């Protein structure tokens, strides 16, 4: 009986339309957050069938995850080993980095917005990251110019060794990234999937070993200063700018602080505090996407850029 009362009370909380000033801030927030998720659950007619708004939104937000593989398709169909040799690391490697960041972005966005309709994108971008990383490693093992056979091409340098480790770690995640494996592994599934944090850390090592900590000056150093922005093209700087947001919003004290402010109805304070960190994330991420688009288009037209 008591349970039934609690259940109906909870349902009331979610469905009730609060009159201004009559309900507390907590209920208003809860209602607002559930409204977006509920709105996304509504069907609409499309070509004689009914589709959920959420499904359409997820498809549209998920399509960019295919871009890195799409960019390499012409080179694959024409077996253009030169394009693979010169630009697969930039196209699929950067693509894997983008997908990793988008995968890691989902949890912080849930923390901030309280919405859950976009959570399936975490799995999608995780799978796309794995496909890009495996594709990159496979192509590098065949077409790279490093000595030492397949293993030499994959792990002959310390930075490629880091990439190799990342690819190895991504394999169990890809294999168990499905509901069946989730059911079978039970409580160990979440533990296993924390390997993503290992991949995130190894990416930092990979980029530091690849480009160092400095940036290009004149014709020396990493990146490409041709456009006058060598700092923005330094991959480790881009990584750091993106990671600050993704890392801070995962820290339990920060999550608790955000939850407490939301409970007080002071969401504006959360947004104001987060804004500079999110701006920094966007600042770094835009240049990662810039890299992907330009190198990707070069790969797509099979005129690979070795910059």
């Amino acid at each position, binding site marked *: 009986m008591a349970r039934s009362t609690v259940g109906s009370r909870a349902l009331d909380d979610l469905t009730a339309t609060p009159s201004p000033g009559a309900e507390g801030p907590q209920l208003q927030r809860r209602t607002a957050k559930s409204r977006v998720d509920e709105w996304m659950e509504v069907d609409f007619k499309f070509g004689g069938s009914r589709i959920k708004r959420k499904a359409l939104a997820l498809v549209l937000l998920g399509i960019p995850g295919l871009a890195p593989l799409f960019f390499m398709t012409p080179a694959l169909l024409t077996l253009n080993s030169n394009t693979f040799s010169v630009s697969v690391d930039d196209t699929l490697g950067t693509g894997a980095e983008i997908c990793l960041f988008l995968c890691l972005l989902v949890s912080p966005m849930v923390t901030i917005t309280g919405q859950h309709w976009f959570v399936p994108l975490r799995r999608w971008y995780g799978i796309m990251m794995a496909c890009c990383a495996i594709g990159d490693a496979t192509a590098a093992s065949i077409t790279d110019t490093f000595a030492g056979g397949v293993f030499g091409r994959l792990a002959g340098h310390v930075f490629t060794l880091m990439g190799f480790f990342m690819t190895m770690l991504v394999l169990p995640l890809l294999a168990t990234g499905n509901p069946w494996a989730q059911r079978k592994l039970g409580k160990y599934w979440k533990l296993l999937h924390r390997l993503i944090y290992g991949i995130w850390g190894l990416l930092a090592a990979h980029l530091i070993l690849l480009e160092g900590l400095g940036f290009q000056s004149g014709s020396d150093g990493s990146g490409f*200063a041709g456009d006058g922005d060598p700092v923005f093209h330094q991959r480790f700087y881009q990584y750091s700018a993106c990671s*600050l947001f993704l890392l*801070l919003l995962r820290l339990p004290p920060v999550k608790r602080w955000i939850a407490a402010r939301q409970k007080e109805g002071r969401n504006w304070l959360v947004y104001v505090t987060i804004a500079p960190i999110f701006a920094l994330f966007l600042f770094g991420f835009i240049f990662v996407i810039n890299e992907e688009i330009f190198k990707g288009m070069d790969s797509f037209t099979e005129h690979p850029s070795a*910059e």
Partner: protein
Amino acid sequence: MTQTYSAGARGQLTSGGVIIAAGSIVAAILVLLGLVYAAGTGARHQAALAAAGCEPGLSPSGQQCTTAQMLTSQYLAIATPADQQLAADVAGYDASEMHSVAAARAALTAQVVSENTFGTGLAAITFPPAMTPVASALLRDDQALAKLTAQQARSASLTRMRSFNRRVQAASATVQAGMKLIRKDL
């Protein structure tokens, strides 16, 4: 116990606030520095072009001046695969020139394709004025070599085909010399 829990929770809330505030301040400073740095992009771009020996004022309107680094990368992207493919085609011809007209012709036809591909790629690169004569000469030599190889491929007999060998080798050596010159200039 409740008091201890509340104190702990307050402490965690405070530490969370401090962490996020510190992160926010650092991020704000970095974004501001980034914007200030971005304001100098134009000047740095001109300096980078000038450092690469490429005068922005001389480049065609609306077209970015190509730096030496970009030029090298563009050239290598066509020269390296062409070199590798030609080496394979020449080996194919050497293996069949004494006994099979069909195989020798196929190898020579492949050579013509490789030479033409290299020529097309070379013509698409915009070289700086100082390098244009060398690049044009290399393009002419490559076209001449492709024409000669095509004539050789049309030969009806192996003897007739082999009679082209010396001339093709000489033309090929000219192309190789031109390629070396370009690499030296880059």
